């Protein structure tokens, strides 16, 4: 029991104490305390990760048959490891970045709490537990969005809150019905629907499936309820934006995996109008997100639109309901998580060092911050899908999966849209590199100053960039795990 409960409760307690206690006042003491807490949390998490057996734990019942239950399986472990890695590196980056912001203690407090809630999401063994932590995730990440408390930030935070809850309540509608029409709410590979009920109520269940996909898709930034993402992600402090784009949207992805593969089951949904609708929405988002990113002038907002687009690559892969595409989708969860956090942290470094937020102001930035922009470039190549980065692997598998799927339209339409989007991705990411390293004749080379950020910010960048490449080169371990998962759910 301690294996499941402690990794959830410990970060939450650390976070709450940071929020509630008046001390420490001095910044250096605060950072020391946070580092100690961080080390403790990560140490315990890693230790217990090696021990946990994956056996289900039913903690208690909220009411009849509505149990809070945890069970860590392979897919949960993959998400969990990604979360831990990115969280740790973003926290280290924050130590330096948050020097220029206010209310730092509150920031760290909520950051810890969010880790605890995300852990609960990964460990969740049934849809009720998952839903409970999903709602908590929205509530506890909202203060990160509106951190700087400007009018813009507060409005963005509220927009995030209301969109997310609208989505959550769509999912709750489905959950109410699934409680009665399913054998159980525990996540079971292949689905939990009662066959009689499924046949009897098929139209209703299909509608509910779509509503749940739309509902959980809100968090993943899927059209038509994506509008909160480009408003909320840029307005947060850069490390929080990185975490939101790289990790918190993946909570929506995990939700969709659970609902489609572990609750409804592929056999119920494959070939139905629900699948077609989902594929259309995902591809639409891929294209639209890239287009809007291409036209966007503010760097962080451009990256936010990029998230909208890239996460729908993952959703497209999931919607194909085909093993190779599934592997590609999960691979992209990891690739995008590592890459997008790198990109946002680079943007944060640029803001921290130079105060510049618009793309057109970034001429010569590569000369000022070479290491940072090199990391940016390598990460961008990953997002575009150039070997040997992880982004290439995931795109390859997504395209192969689409071609394999045998769907008359989407087998070819999918890869075409992915290709167009890759070109657009190059178009919206690489100009910063090009103008950064080759600012042209008109640039005032003498007035330029070296502005490389300090080690606390550069080292996480380097690690994340390295990981995004390493996971593209050493693919076998992860692919083997994904194959094992795919075997159970297809």
């Amino acid at each position, binding site marked *: 029991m301690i294996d499941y409960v402690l990794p959830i409760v410990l970060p939450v307690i650390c976070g709450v104490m940071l929020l509630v206690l008046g001390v420490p006042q001095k910044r250096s003491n605060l950072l020391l305390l946070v580092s100690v807490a961080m080390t403790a949390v990560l140490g315990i998490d890693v230790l217990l990760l090696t021990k946990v057996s994956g056996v289900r734990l039913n903690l*208690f*019942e*909220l*009411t*009849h048959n*509505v149990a809070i239950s945890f069970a860590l399986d392979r897919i949960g472990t993959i998400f969990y490891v990604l979360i831990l890695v990115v969280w740790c590196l973003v926290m280290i980056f924050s130590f330096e970045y948050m020097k220029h912001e206010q209310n730092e203690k509150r920031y760290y407090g909520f950051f810890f709490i969010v880790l605890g809630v995300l852990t609960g999401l990964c460990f969740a063994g049934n849809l*009720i537990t998952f*839903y*409970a932590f999903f*709602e*908590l995730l929205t*509530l506890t990440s909202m*203060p990160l969005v*509106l951190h700087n*408390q*400007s*009018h813009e930030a*507060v409005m963005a*935070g*509220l927009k995030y*809150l*209301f969109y997310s*809850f*609208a989505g959550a*309540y*769509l999912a*709750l*509608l489905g959950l*109410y*019905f699934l*409680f*009665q029409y399913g054998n159980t709410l525990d996540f079971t590979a292949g689905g939990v629907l009662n066959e009689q009920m499924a046949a009897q109520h098929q139209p209703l269940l299909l509608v509910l499936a779509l509503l749940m996909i739309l509902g959980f898709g809100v968090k993943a930034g899927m059209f038509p309820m994506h509008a909160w993402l480009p408003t909320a992600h840029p307005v947060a402090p850069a490390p929080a934006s990185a975490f939101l784009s790289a990790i918190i949207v993946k909570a929506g992805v995990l939700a969709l995996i659970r609902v489609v593969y572990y609750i409804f089951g592929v056999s119920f949904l494959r070939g139905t109008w629900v699948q077609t609708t989902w594929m259309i929405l995902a591809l639409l988002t891929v294209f639209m997100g890239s287009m809007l990113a291409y036209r966007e002038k503010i760097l962080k907002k451009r990256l936010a639109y990029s998230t909208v687009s890239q996460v729908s690559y993952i959703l497209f892969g999931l919607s194909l309901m085909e093993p190779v595409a599934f592997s590609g989708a999960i691979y992209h969860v990891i690739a995008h998580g590592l890459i997008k956090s790198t990109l946002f942290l680079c943007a944060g470094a640029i803001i921290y060092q130079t105060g510049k937020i618009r793309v057109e102001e970034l001429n010569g930035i590569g000369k000022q911050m070479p290491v940072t922009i090199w990391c940016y470039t390598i990460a961008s190549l990953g997002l575009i899908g150039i070997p040997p980065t992880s982004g290439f692997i995931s795109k390859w598998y997504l395209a192969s999966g689409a071609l394999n799927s045998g769907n008359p339209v989407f087998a070819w339409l999918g890869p075409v849209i992915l290709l167009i989007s890759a070109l657009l991705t190059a178009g919206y990411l690489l100009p910063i590199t090009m103008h950064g390293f080759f600012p042209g004749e008109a640039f005032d080379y003498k007035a330029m100053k070296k502005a490389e950020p300090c080690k606390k910010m550069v080292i996480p960048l380097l690690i994340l960039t390295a990981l995004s490449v390493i996971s593209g080169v050493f693919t076998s371990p992860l692919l083997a795990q994904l194959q094992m998962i795919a075997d159970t759910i297809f």
Partner: protein
Amino acid sequence: MPEYMLFIVILLPMLTGVVFPILPIKKRSYRLLFLEILVVLNSVFVWMLLLNRPESGFTLAHFTGDLTITFKMDGMSMVFAGLVSALWPLATLYSFEYMTKEKRENMFFMFYTVSYGVTLGIALAGNLLTMYFFYELLTLVTVPLVMHTMTREAILASRKYLYYSIGGAAFGFIGMIFMIIYGTTLDFALGGVLDLVKIGDRTNILLLVYVMAFLGFGVKAAICPFSSWLPQAGVAPTPVTALLHAVAVVKAGAFAILRLTYYCYGTDFLRGSWAQYVTMAIAMFTIVYGCSRAVKETHLKRRLAYSTISNLSYIIFGATIMTPLGMVGALSHMVFHAVMKICSFFCAGAIMHQTEKHYVHELDGLGKQMPMIFGIFTVSSLALMGVPGLAGFISKWNLAYAAIESGNPLAFGGVGCLLISALLTAIYMLTIVVRGFFVKSKVTEANEKQDYHDPNWMMLLPLGIFAAAIVLFGLFSTPLVNFLTDVASGLY
């Protein structure tokens, strides 16, 4: 326990209230102590009655024919009486502090305490006549409370309240007359007491009368289109709006509808009829209407009043599902919403008491200066939205479960209404929380200059207890839900 105790617990608060203004004790704190002791004593008696239920009823008076004033404690009485008696001592304690800033508190406490007895009279009523009698009486003793501040606003509000309530009770009276003629008895019995032989083929008339009585009693339960008295009654002092207009009066309306549906007409007669669809549709509409008005409302207490309108229709929706599970859902929301809403209203009252601010846009940044109040307000907001782990999730779950289990397609739509309402609740409650904790504006700067702080223990203690209850019910609701299921299956 002996049956006459059923009458004692009704009489004792009424006498206490009447005696209070003429009490020979001079010092304020001793007078209030006397009052609180008697209220607590009465609540203890009620709970003793709950735990040692008298088997038969207590007849106070006989009128002509079989018409009697009878008190009896059955399952539903246990729920309502238990709820009201648990909340009243805490509300009285809260109002001691609150009334330091208001005038004529003797009158206030007189009517406040008499209302306690009258509400118990509704809860413990053994037949429709008794319930109707105390129902009308409740209107009469609460009008002076609404009118208390004696401003023009208050007088207009109390007049509207009076007219609406008396009008509604008149329609309830029509229902009662038909029950006398077409029912085997006026007593409450689970499953109904209609004499089907006597009705013959006049079913539609009976259904029409049911809908009329539903609308009549529904006035007190603030169903659309008879709900406008409730937001206007927000002009009363907060202990009145909180306890009476979020717990006692409005729940009495919902209670009456439950009695009418399950214990007079009986659900077997009503289920599947056009009357069920009409009443369910009215409830569903009110759910969404109440929440929509709340989003637009900027006056803090009126916003919570609209929220009450919506939440009461959750209870009524549960009643209109007309299955035992529907009753469980309705009763669980009756209990949980009472706690959540009294908590919200008391927080609002504390804010108004400490800062004299009435409107939502004046509350920027107050969370820093009054962290306990805003913290507890956040808990009640999350509970009203239905966040898992808090009480509201459980009652919504029970309602949705009942709706889906019934197989009624309109009820499925009702679940959708519940969720739309949940989203709107998130909007109108969390914007207050965010304003309090996170907004930095000119209003915040002005507020920071003032010396605002959390109120003293007399207001904080009830709030803390309510917040703890919300969390407790959210996590450990199974015993209560089991009890309600027993009530719905007729065990008591």
